[in-house]
C-alpha cells in the first residue's frame, strides 16, 4: 500500500502508459478487451486522483506527494513530481474526461486498438504536465500530449482532416518553440542554473527587460494551446475534424495545459513584471470572449459552434489569470474545470448526434428533442453551463472571474461581460434549431442515446450541476493551490 501512496503521482501518470504498452501486445481483433484495458488504465488514474484529493493535507498546503529522482545529473534535470490544489483539480478533470471519453468512443470500430493506444499515450502526457515540477519534464510531457493528436486527427478524423491535423500540429509546434526557447534562456541566463520549477518560482533576478521577454515567450507558447486570439484558428478546425473522444480530450483538457502553463510560468516565475504585462493578457482575453462568441453565432456546423465556444470560454480563463488576485484566479481554475467538463459533454453529444443523424449542419436539423429527449436534456444542461446559468459550474466560474477582475480592469471586464448575452444567443439558437420545433420527415426514426453512450452524458451533466450547486469542495481545493502561488488568503 505504501508503495502506491509513495508513488501516487507516478502511478497516475504512468497507468495510461502501461495500458498503452499492454494494448500494443493485444491482437487487434480483441476490441472489447482493448476498450476494457483503456477504461481500466484511465480509471486507475481517475481513482488515484480522487485518492490524492482526499489525502491532500490542506493545513500543510504546497506541493505534496513529491517524488524526485536524478535524471541527468550534469544538467541538474530531475524527474520531479508534485501536486498542489490547482494540479489536483486538473488531474480530476483529466481523469473524468479520459474515462468518459473511452465510453464515448466505445462503438469506434476502425483500428480500435491503435486509436486507444494513442489516446492513452496522449493522456500520459497530460497527466504528466499537471504534476511535473521540472521544466524539462514539463516540456517532455507537453510534447507527448500534443504529438499523438496529429495521428489521431489525421487517421480517425472527418472532413478536412489532413489539413486540420497539419495545421494544429504546426501551430502547437510553433508554441513549443517559444516555450523551449524560454526554458533554455531561463536555464542559461539565470544564475540559479536549474530546471526546478519550485526554485524558479517566486521571483527572478534577471533584468526586467529579459523577464518581460521570457514572460511573452511563455505566454505566447502556452497561449497558442489555450487558444488566445489571434492564434486560435487551429482549434475550430482541429476540434471539428477530430473524432469524438479526441475532441473531448483536446478541448476539455489540452487547452487547459496552455492556461496551466501560463500560471506556472508567467504568474509564478515573473511576479515583478506580471502586473505591468497582464493588462495585455486581459485585453486579449476579452477579445477572445466576445469575438469567439460572435464567431460561434455565425457558424452552421454544430461542431464549429462548440469549438468557437471554447475559444470564447478560454478567454474567461485567461481573464481570470490576468487578475493576479485570489478571486479571479480561483475563477480561472474553476472555469478550466468547468469548461473541461462542459465541452467534454458537448463534444460527446455532437458525436452522438452526428453518428445518428449523419449531419452536423444545424440548419438541416430540427425537432430532435422529440426523438432524442435524453440527448436534448444533456445538451441543454451543457448549454446552461455555457452561458453561466446559476446552478451550474459555469456560473460560479464566470462570476468569480468577473468579480475578481473588475476593479483592476473595469472597461475590459465591462466588455467581456457582454459575452454572457452573446453566449446565451448562440446556445439558445443551437438548442432551438437542433432540438426544438417540428420534427422533419427524415428524422422520424432517430434513436436516443444507448447503453454505454449514457455514461458520458449523465456523469458529465451531473458534474456540471453538482459543482454549480455546491462548489465549496472544489473551491477549497483550488484555494490551497492559490496559497502555493503565494497569494494571501
Amino acid at each position, binding site marked *: 500500500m505504501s508503495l502506491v501512496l509513495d508513488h501516487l503521482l507516478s502511478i497516475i501518470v504512468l497507468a495510461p502508459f502501461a495500458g498503452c504498452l499492454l494494448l500494443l501486445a493485444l491482437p487487434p481483433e480483441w476490441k472489447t478487451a482493448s476498450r476494457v484495458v483503456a477504461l481500466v488504465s484511465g480509471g486507475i488514474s481517475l481513482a488515484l486522483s480522487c485518492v490524492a484529493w482526499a489525502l491532500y493535507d490542506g493545513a500543510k498546503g504546497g506541493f505534496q506527494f513529491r517524488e524526485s529522482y536524478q535524471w541527468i545529473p550534469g544538467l541538474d534535470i530531475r524527474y520531479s513530481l508534485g501536486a498542489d490544489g490547482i494540479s489536483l483539480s486538473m488531474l480530476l478533470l483529466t481523469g473524468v474526461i479520459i474515462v468518459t471519453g473511452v465510453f464515448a468512443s466505445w462503438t469506434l470500430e476502425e483500428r480500435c486498438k491503435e486509436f486507444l493506444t494513442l489516446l492513452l499515450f496522449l493522456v500520459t502526457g497530460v497527466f504528466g504536465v499537471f504534476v511535473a515540477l521540472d521544466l524539462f519534464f514539463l516540456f517532455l510531457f507537453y510534447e507527448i500530449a500534443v504529438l499523438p493528436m496529429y495521428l489521431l486527427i489525421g487517421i480517425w478524423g472527418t472532413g478536412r482532416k489532413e489539413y486540420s491535423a497539419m*495545421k494544429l500540429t*504546426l*501551430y502547437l509546434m510553433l508554441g513549443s518553440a517559444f516555450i523551449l526557447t524560454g526554458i533554455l534562456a531561463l536555464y542559461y541566463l539565470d544564475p540559479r542554473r536549474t530546471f526546478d520549477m519550485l526554485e524558479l518560482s517566486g521571483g527572478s533576478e534577471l533584468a526586467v527587460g529579459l523577464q518581460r521577454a521570457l514572460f511573452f515567450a511563455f505566454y505566447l507558447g502556452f497561449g497558442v494551446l489555450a487558444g488566445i486570439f*489571434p492564434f486560435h*484558428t*487551429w482549434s*475550430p478546425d482541429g476540434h471539428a475534424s477530430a473524432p469524438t473522444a479526441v475532441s473531448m480530450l483536446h478541448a476539455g483538457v489540452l487547452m487547459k495545459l496552455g492556461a496551466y502553463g501560463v500560471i506556472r510560468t508567467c504568474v509564478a516565475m515573473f511576479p515583478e513584471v506580471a502586473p505591468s504585462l497582464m493588462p495585455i493578457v486581459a485585453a486579449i482575453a476579452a477579445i477572445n470572449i466576445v*469575438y469567439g462568441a*460572435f*464567431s*460561434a*453565432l*455565425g*457558424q452552421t456546423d454544430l461542431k464549429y459552434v462548440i469549438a*468557437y465556444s471554447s475559444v470564447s470560454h478560454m478567454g474567461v480563463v485567461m481573464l481570470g489569470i490576468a487578475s493576479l488576485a*485570489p*478571486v479571479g484566479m*480561483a475563477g480561472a481554475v474553476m472555469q478550466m474545470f468547468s469548461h473541461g467538463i462542459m465541452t467534454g459533454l458537448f463534444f460527446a453529444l455532437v458525436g452522438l448526434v452526428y453518428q445518428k443523424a449523419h449531419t452536423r449542419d444545424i440548419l438541416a436539423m430540427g425537432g430532435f*428533442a*422529440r426523438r432524442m429527449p435524453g440527448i436534448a436534456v444533456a445538451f441543454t444542461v451543457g448549454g*446552461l453551463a455555457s452561458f453561466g*446559468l*446559476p*446552478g451550474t459550474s459555469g*456560473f*460560479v466560474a464566470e*462570476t*468569480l472571474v*468577473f*468579480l*475578481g477582475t*473588475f*476593479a483592476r480592469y*473595469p472597461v475590459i*471586464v*465591462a466588455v467581456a*461581460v*457582454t459575452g*454572457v*448575452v452573446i453566449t*446565451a*444567443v*448562440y446556445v*439558445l*439558437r443551437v438548442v*432551438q434549431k437542433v*432540438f*426544438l*420545433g*417540428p*420534427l422533419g420527415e427524415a428524422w422520424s426514426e432517430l434513436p436516443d442515446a444507448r447503453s454505454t453512450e449514457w455514461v458520458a452524458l449523465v456523469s458529465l451533466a451531473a458534474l456540471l450541476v453538482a459543482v454549480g450547486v455546491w*462548489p*465549496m469542495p472544489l*473551491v477549497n481545493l*483550488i*484555494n490551497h493551490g*492559490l496559497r502555493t502561488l503565494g*497569494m*494571501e*488568503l
Partner: protein
Amino acid sequence: MVEWIPLLPALAAALTAVLFVLRRDNGRLAAMPVIVATGASLALSVAAFQSVARFGAQIGQIEWLRIGDFSASVGFLLDGLSALMLLVVASVALLVQVFSVGYMEGDDGFARFFAYLGLFASAMLGLVLADNLLMVYICWELVGICSYLLIGFWYRNRAPANAAKKAFIVTRFGDLGLLLGIILLWSSAHTFEIAALEKLVQTDNLKPVLLSAGAFFTVVPLLVFLGAVGKSAQFPLHVWLPDAMEGPTPVSALIHAATMVAAGVFLVARLFFLFHASPTALQTVAWIGGFTAFLAATIALVQVDIKKVLAYSTISQLGYMMLGLALGGIAVGMFHLSTHAFFKALLFLAAGSVIHACHHEQCLLRMGGLHRRMPLTSWTTLAGALALAGVFPFAGFWSKDEILASALRSPALFALALAVAGMTAFYMTRLWFLAFAGEPRSEHASHARESSAWMGVPLVLLALAALAGGAINLPGSSSLTALLEPDRQAHGFAWPVAVGGLAVALAGIAVGVRLYGRDPARDAVTRLPKGLYRFLSNKWYIDDFYERGVARAAVAWGAMVAWFDRNVVDNLVNLAAWICALVGRALGSFTNGQPQFYAAVLALMAVIAAALVGLAATGALGGILP
C-alpha cells in the same frame, strides 16, 4: 423553518422528475408532489408572516463560497417585504397549480409541466427571501430559465420555441445591467448582503471605487433598474412579454402576470435605499414606468387575441407599479403589485378557462356569447376586470388610487397615469363584451362548456381576492406602510383623487359599453383613424425595430465575424505556412542532385570568397572583415 419555503417545491420537482423517469406516468397523480409541497410552503409562509408581525425581521444564512476574504452565502432575509411577497407568490402559485391539473389534463408533458412549476415556485420564493445580491441574481436567473422552459413548453411548435428564446435573450440584456451593478457594488463594499449594504449607504460609509460618489450612486441604481426593466417588461425591453403568451395559459397567469414579471418591481423595492439616494434614478424609474404604462395601454386597445390584451395590460400595470414606487415609495408600489397579482392571475386563468372551452381559440373576434355557456368564468372575469379598471370597492381601486395620489407631485405623470386608467377601463370592457356578450361567432364558441371544478375553484377564490384584496391596506389602517416602511408616515387617503380616478374609470367603461354593448360583433376600435390603428396594431413598430434591425444586425455581425475569422485571421496563418513552404522549396532546389549544379555553386562561392579576401586586403571593406 423559513429555508424550507423555497426548498420544498424544489424537492418536489426533483421527485416528480425521478418518478416520471421511473414510471412514465402523466396522470393526475404526477401533479401531487408539487401541489402538496407548494401548499406546505404556503402554510409556512403564513407562519412566517405572523412571526415577522410579532418578532420583526429575521435572518439566517450558511456559507456557500469562501476565497480568502471573499465570502458568499445562501440565506434568507425575512422582513415585512419578503413576508408579504411570500404570501402573494405561494398562494397564487398554489391556485395556478390546482387550476393546471384541469387545464393540462391529457397533455403528454403533464409531469414535466409540474416539475417546471415546482422549480419555478422554488426559485421565485428563493428570490423573495434572498438576503444577499448574489443569491438575488442566482434566483433571478433561475426564474428566467423556468420562464424559458415554460414558454417553450410546447416545443414541437415553432412559435413557442421562438418566443422562449426571445424572452430569455431580451431579459438577459437587462440581467447584464443587474450583474454589472452587483459587481460594482461588491467591488466597493466587499459584501453582497442587502442589510449590510443598506446600513453602509445610510451611514454614508460606502466608499465607491472607480467612480465618484455622485456618479456611483446614480449609475448603480440605474444598472439595477436595467435588470428590472428586462424582467418586468418595461420599455424598451417589453417586447418579450406578449410573445411569452405562447406558453400554456396557467404559466402566463403565474409567471407572466402575477409573480416573475413583478420581480423587477420587487427588486426596486428591495433595493430602494439605493434609489432613494439618487433623484436621477428615481426620475428615470418614474418616467420609464409612466411611459411604459401608457405605451402598453394604447397597444392593448386594439389587440384581438385575449391573451395579448391581458399581456399588454400586464406591461402597463407593471409600469404603473414602477411609477408608484418611484413617486410614492415601497408601500405604494407593493400594494398594487399584491392586488394586481391576484386579479391579473384571475383574468389569465379565466382566459385559460375560455381558451380551454373553445378548443384553443384565442381570438376575441371568434368568441362571443360565452356568458350563458360559462357563467362562472364570465362572472369571475367581470370581477377581475372591475378590479383592474379600479372600480370601487374592488382591490384595484384602492391600490391604483395610491399611485394616482403620489403621481400628483408631477402633473405630466399624473395626466399620463389618468389616461392609462381610462384606457384600461375601456379595453377591459371591450374584452368582456367581445368574449362573453352577444352571440357566438364561431363553431367552437357555440359549443363551449363551463370548465371543471379543478379550474372553477381557483377562479372563485381569486375573484374573492380581487373583490376584497384592498382590505390589506385600507385607508386609515395604513397596515402595509407600517409593515414595509416602519419609519415612514403613511399619507392619508386623497378623496378628490379617488373620486377623479373612479370617474375616469367609469368613463372608460361607459365608452366601452356604448361601443360594444349593443353589437359586440363589430370591433369598434377598427374605426380609429387608419394611420393610428395601424400604428397601434403594429405595436408602435418597436418589435419590427428589434426583429428587422437589432436581431438581424446581430446575426449578420456574427456571420461577418465568422467570415473574418475564416478569411482574414486564418489566411494570415495560411500565408505564414505558404511563405515557409516557399522558402523551403527555394532552398530545396539547391539540393537537386546534379553534380554540375553543385560544382557551379561551389565555383561561384569560391569566386565570391576570393573577391572578398582581395577587397579586404586592399582595405576597401574597412574593418568589416578581420
